[in-house]
């Protein structure tokens, strides 16, 4: 049953990103492009598979692109989009202090239970022990939770995108940019 559901999910994803008869522009074509010239769209950001699955606790890092938040008593977890999680001491909200940073390539979301932090890392769910926020340690990884089909298109956007070339590595994010005659659209 689970296999059937996964198969159906894949079919739905495939349908979602492939062509439909009434919208020919959503075709991933054989190489001729959409013929739409220079347009705004999304380009995949690649990372080598090993690097994309490397989790590091680096100490305080600059905040670049604030993402999601998760409140955990005296601490706030703040994701830096596609990059990692800032651990912030908010025991005095008038003077919050960044304490540590967990580098998690591709991260979208974070949650905490009983001092264990969960985050998505490309295809996997990773677990970190944050009981000592100064000495955060990697706990475990649940592999292949998120299907690789998620990688094949920008999940939160419609429009043009550069088709994914899986030989270039894993997709850890998408950047908005100008694309010359992109061959993919959704």
């Amino acid at each position, binding site marked *: 049953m689970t296999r059937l559901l996964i198969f159906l999910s894949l079919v739905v994803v495939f349908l979602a990103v492939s062509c439909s008869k009434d919208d020919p522009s959503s075709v991933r074509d054989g190489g001729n492009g959409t013929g739409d010239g220079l347009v705004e769209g999304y380009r995949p950001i690649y990372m080598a598979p090993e690097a994309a699955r490397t989790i590091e606790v680096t100490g305080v890092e600059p905040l670049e692109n604030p993402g999601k938040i998760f409140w955990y008593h005296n601490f706030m977890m703040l994701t830096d989009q596609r990059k990692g999680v800032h651990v912030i001491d908010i025991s005095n909200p008038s003077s919050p202090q960044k304490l540590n940073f967990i580098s998690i390539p591709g991260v979208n979301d974070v*949650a905490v239970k009983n001092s264990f932090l969960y985050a998505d890392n490309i295809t996997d769910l990773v677990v970190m022990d944050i009981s000592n926020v100064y000495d955060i340690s990697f706990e475990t990884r649940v592999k292949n939770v998120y299907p690789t089909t998620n990688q094949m298109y920008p999940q939160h956007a419609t429009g043009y995108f550069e088709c994914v070339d899986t030989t270039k590595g894993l997709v850890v994010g998408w950047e908005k940019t100008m694309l010359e005659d992109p061959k993919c659209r959704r």
Partner: protein
Amino acid sequence: MAAILIIVPFACDKSPMESGSDSKSAGEGKGGSMARMTILGDYLYAVDGTSLKVFHVKNPQSPQYKNDVHIGRDIETIFGFNNYLYIGSVSAVYIYDVAQPQSPVLISTIRHVLSCDPVVANDTIAFSTIRSTSECRFNQWEANQLLVLDVSNMKNVEKTHAYHLNFSPFGLGLKDTTLFLCKGDQGVELLDIREVAEKDSHSLNPFNQITGTHAFDVIIHENLLMLVGDDGLVFFDISDLYNITELSRIIPD
């Protein structure tokens, strides 16, 4: 960018402060309304674009992957409340019953449509926002909206209001009877939910607002409002809703 939908349930007969979290116990935290992961009891639920993943986290250091439930296209957010998961997608809100935590059961689907039949909201109401941008291909028939849902009968959830918004809404937060509605570049709007859910109400009349910061999502804990947006993480004292004071902010470097 597709439309995003967020939902913040509010139960009149329960402590509204707990609306963002299932449990008050020491081990629990609280996510924002834009989250794609949520913890209910001993289970972690996570959504990707099309499905819901179920993890048993009774032993939090070693989650057990238990189930993968296909939901639909373009899933955006998940919000857990009591025994229910509210899952927002581009085209619908799905409500799952998790009385059997490993096997979520779909009990309601609320499609986004512009027409609505106003119904009196009684025991329990929920709010959601729908955002559409110029890039959204659904734009022709979708618009920026605040929806009010009557969830007193979970098997027959009805949409009571669909307020049109002249801005793009993002996350939502709730403190007692005040709804905090994130407006992106325009900050945050404060609404009295008793007015918003009023049967004959047709327009929103915010009684206060927070400006001067981009607002993507909020988390409220007691008198502390934690806001995240492009301008960083900002903390506000909201003990006096008419005189909200900024405590601090961590800005992007």
